[in-house]
């Protein structure tokens, strides 16, 4: 990886960096943290906290959330360090700080390792070591299991790797309660099951990009039709799973309605993706599913946040 990525950075930056001078701006280092992914991590972790009854001090909860965010950002930086070579050949990622020549791979590595170690230690000291261990496992899973191993070797990469993105609610619950319950496991399962249809919808549209980078995404290996079937199967599993918080009693009336309507929306789009296989309409509906999947997950978690964080919880049963 490093040989190829080193050859991709701009020669001028290389010479300045070897002279010991970083060329990165603060915004470049911030971009290494994958702010949009970090927002999703913070958001889902916050929901994991508010659905968990605890009497932890708000400052401790805030710092725990901050450390989960920093840990998530650190794994993003380490992912960019490892994937600099493939980021350089994909249109979606070629402007990232390392392929753009703004930050050296070694800087990103040092930045990512420092933040990883720092966030895990501080989370352990501030909350508890179960949460810290889970955060360390999340970073390890995303960087080593997903980025270094699965991403380039199997078409199931994002299915298994999706576990890393689904873990923040569990880490957050552990941080404020000291244990892991079914509530956060269900939130984990929802994100885990949501990941394949979300990413494969994008992969259908961007299959050329992944092909060029040599990443074995489902559409490139099993073909677009097999991918469409898999998207449909995962969505059929996801829609009822979205209602599991209602069955467990921590999803209220508003959540039940959102999960029901959103689940039908996801199913309708997944069926459309399965049926439309040729030309522009096929691409358009895949793009729509990708966009709607983001809205669906956001609404599910936002509703839980409003119900529990602002006292709007109305039980469905009893």
């Amino acid at each position, binding site marked *: 990886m490093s040989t190829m990525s080193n050859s991709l950075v701009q020669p001028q930056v290389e010479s*300045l960096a*070897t*002279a*010991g*001078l*970083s*060329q*990165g*701006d*603060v915004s470049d*280092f911030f971009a290494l943290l994958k702010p949009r992914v970090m927002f999703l991590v913070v958001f889902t972790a916050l929901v994991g906290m508010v659905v968990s009854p605890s009497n932890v*001090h708000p*400052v*401790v909860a805030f*710092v725990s959330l*901050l450390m989960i965010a920093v840990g998530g950002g650190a794994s993003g930086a380490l992912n960019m360090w490892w994937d600099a070579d493939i980021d350089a050949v994909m249109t979606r990622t070629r402007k990232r700080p390392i392929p753009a020549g703004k930050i050296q791979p070694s800087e990103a590595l040092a930045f990512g390792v420092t933040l990883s170690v720092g966030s895990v230690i501080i989370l352990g000291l*501030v909350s508890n070591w179960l949460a810290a261990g889970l955060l360390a496992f999340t970073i390890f899973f995303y960087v080593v299991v997903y980025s270094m191993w699965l991403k380039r070797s199997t078409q199931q990469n994002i299915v298994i790797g999706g576990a890393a993105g689904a873990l923040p609610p569990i880490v957050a619950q552990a941080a404020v309660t000291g244990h892991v319950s079914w509530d956060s496991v269900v939130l984990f399962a929802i994100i885990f099951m949501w990941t394949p249809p979300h990413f494969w919808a994008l992969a259908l549209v961007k299959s050329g990009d992944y092909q060029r980078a040599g990443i074995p995404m489902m559409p490139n290996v099993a073909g677009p039709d097999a991918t469409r079937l898999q998207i449909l199967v995962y969505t059929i599993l996801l829609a009822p799973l979205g209602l599991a918080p209602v069955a467990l009693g921590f999803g209220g009336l508003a959540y039940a309605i959102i999960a029901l309507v959103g689940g039908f929306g996801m199913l309708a789009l997944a069926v459309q993706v399965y049926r439309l296989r040729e030309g522009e309409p096929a691409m358009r509906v895949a793009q729509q599913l990708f966009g709607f999947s983001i809205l669906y997950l956001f609404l599910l978690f936002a509703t839980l946040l409003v119900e529990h964080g602002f006292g709007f919880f109305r039980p469905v049963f009893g």
Partner: protein
Amino acid sequence: MADRKSHQSLTPEEQKRRRSRSLALALTLGVLVLLFYVVTIAKLGPGVLQRPM
């Protein structure tokens, strides 16, 4: 090699970027100090300041 560069004059753009990195680092350290102080008070309570001598 770092010494060699330190003797060279930096361009205004390089100086600006180095300054912004230094400020961000200083701010991060300051926030960390504040964070540790506030967390200590939150975890141990204000009674930590009123220990019998």
